[in-house]
């Protein structure tokens, strides 16, 4: 009888161990989050943040040094000359040393995951959280200056626009707050905002895309809707404002060029593939990434000088360094691919190799 009890106990302990191992840690699947400066690319993926040399594709450092089931990164890091700033799914936000990846400070005051990329303006980091708040943190020590609460999760990068911070939340609102975190205006749109708001060079307009198929032009000072453009499917990616062109791509893979002043359609391109990752500005044109692994360049005449087909799926917005375009992949053996501006793949990066 004793043997049986020991056996039953052993079975339960084993089961508890296995199930609790499964239970531990955040349960979420996300696309790798990318950012870059001149020579380096930084990528958040699963349990690590990697710094990769953008010329060679070799890993420079990774954070943390040891994988933990409790720590998962999907928010794209943000970089300045002092450090790399990134949040995780354990509700922590970090500043990492740019050269070594060493942790310089950690903010643990949030109650939700960090899904979206933070923004830097002056000496403040604006970190959007899934706990419905945007946290304004002191860039030097990570201390909380203020937080601004919304009614839903914030997944997109805030936009520092003059003396205002523009942030969109999943409850269909675009919010503008001043440098002290006091609300200046908020405007309700027709759907959740997953992509970040962007602005034009004169900073008098804010462009925001919703998964309710619409692109809006808002007055930056009042939040009033100046115009609304309706696409045929959801707008998941951040719009791109470049060289006086306002571009947006819908989920069905249709690229729209919209007049930024009036919201009128200028032209469209059918990519033929679904798109979530979005658009990247390059000299004389732009690059679009599609879910089925295509990286395609276009000029503003709508001609495509090159297309690279990668093995894997692309859900992340690509980034650009001095020489290369970097693409993050899902369901692929490699995590990153470097493509030069002529459309030739120059390297790939697989963590641990």
């Amino acid at each position: 009888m004793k043997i049986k009890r020991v056996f039953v106990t052993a079975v339960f302990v084993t089961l508890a161990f296995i199930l609790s191992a499964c239970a531990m840690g955040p349960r979420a699947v996300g696309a790798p989050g990318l950012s870059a400066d001149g020579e380096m690319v930084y990528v958040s993926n699963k349990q690590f943040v990697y710094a990769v040399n953008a010329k060679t594709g070799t890993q420079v450092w990774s954070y943390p040094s040891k994988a933990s089931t409790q720590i998962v990164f999907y928010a794209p890091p943000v970089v300045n000359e002092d450090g790399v700033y990134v949040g995780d799914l354990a509700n922590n936000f970090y500043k990492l040393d740019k050269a070594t990846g060493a942790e310089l400070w950690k903010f643990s005051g949030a109650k939700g995951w960090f899904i979206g990329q933070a923004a830097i303006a002056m000496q403040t980091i604006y970190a959007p959280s899934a706990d419905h708040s945007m946290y304004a943190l002191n860039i030097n020590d990570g201390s909380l200056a203020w937080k601004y609460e919304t009614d839903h999760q914030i997944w997109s990068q805030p936009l520092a626009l003059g003396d205002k911070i523009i942030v969109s939340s999943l409850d269909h609102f675009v919010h503008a707050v001043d440098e002290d975190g006091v609300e200046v205006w908020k405007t309700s749109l027709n759907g959740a905002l997953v992509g970040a708001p962007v602005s034009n060079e004169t900073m008098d307009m804010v462009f925001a895309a919703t998964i309710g198929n619409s692109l809006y032009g808002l007055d930056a000072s009042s939040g009033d809707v100046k115009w609304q453009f309706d696409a045929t499917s959801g707008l998941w990616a951040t719009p791109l404002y470049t060289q006086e062109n306002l571009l947006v791509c819908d989920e069905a893979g249709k690229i729209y060029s919209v007049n930024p002043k009036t919201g009128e359609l200028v032209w469209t391109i059918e990519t033929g593939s679904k798109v979530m990752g979005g658009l990247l500005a390059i000299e004389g044109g732009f690059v679009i990434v599609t879910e089925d692994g295509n990286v395609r360049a276009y000029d503003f005449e709508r001609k495509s000088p090159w297309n690279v087909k990668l093995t894997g799926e692309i859900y992340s917005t690509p980034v650009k360094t001095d020489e290369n375009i970097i693409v993050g992949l899902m369901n692929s053996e490699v995590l990153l691919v470097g493509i030069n501006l002529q459309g030739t793949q120059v390297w790939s990066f697989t963590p641990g190799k």
Partner: protein
Amino acid sequence: MWQTIIVNPFTNVLLAITLVVQNFGVAIILFTILIKLITWPLTTSSMKAAQSMQQLQSDPRYKKIQEKYKNDKEKFAQEQMKLYKELGVKPMGSCLPNLIQLPIIIGLYQSIIKGMAATPYELLNLERIVYSFLDSNKLLPLQNKFLWMDLGQPERLSVFGVQIPVLAIIVVLTTFLQSKLMQPPTTNPNDQGAAFSKAMNLYMPILMGWMAYSLASGLALYFLISNIATIAQYAIMGKVNWKNLFTFGPKPASAPVSSRQNQVKPTKPEPVVIDEDEDDEEEEVEKVGKPSARSMVKQRRPQMKKKK
């Protein structure tokens, strides 16, 4: 296949309920109860079969076989099967309905996870499975606040700055209650099933509590409602052994009132004659326990006629 047949329809039902009640937490509660109602016949069937098995183990003929072939497991198994057949007891009768329920429960669990879409990638995948008659733009993403909880995060209630995992504690208590209240009475102190149940009483609450503590509170809410609904279901069917609540030592042989109705009727103790001649065993077993066996399966097989 699994996604199309089970997870996607479940997720859409969950979303439809959310659309009606405008609250994902309430939708999880209602959906869990709905699934309990749908699987009610399976639970009933499983419970009856388990009860028959339990009763069989206190049957004199079973005990006799057990005693006689304690050193010959193969022969014991053969005789046991004969007895099952004779009494119309289906040894898989309690497992099968549970196995059928398993995909439903897993589907429910997965649909809740899917509904909580926590990243843009997960939300995109959720949006793509929403049926066209549901307005996904109006519905998504789901609001994850419910009472004091963020349904996408492990639950903690802050009381004077102390973070208390209230939901996990309640899940531990309800899992313990569920195990205790549904534990059938046993007359056999060496009963393996009873030993297993005892271990379950101890480990399951800890296991479920740990999962409720560490997983998103939306799932912990599901565990809690599932426990409460199961206890309620058994209580409605009169199968809850309330006396078990106050029993912490070895189990008494007596059965609770609620389950006596289906218990073997106390028959006149007939002499148990164990014939050493194996050829006569079958006949002898039949002779010894027949009245008891009939009374036992009477409710389950009313068409069974008495042999004389």
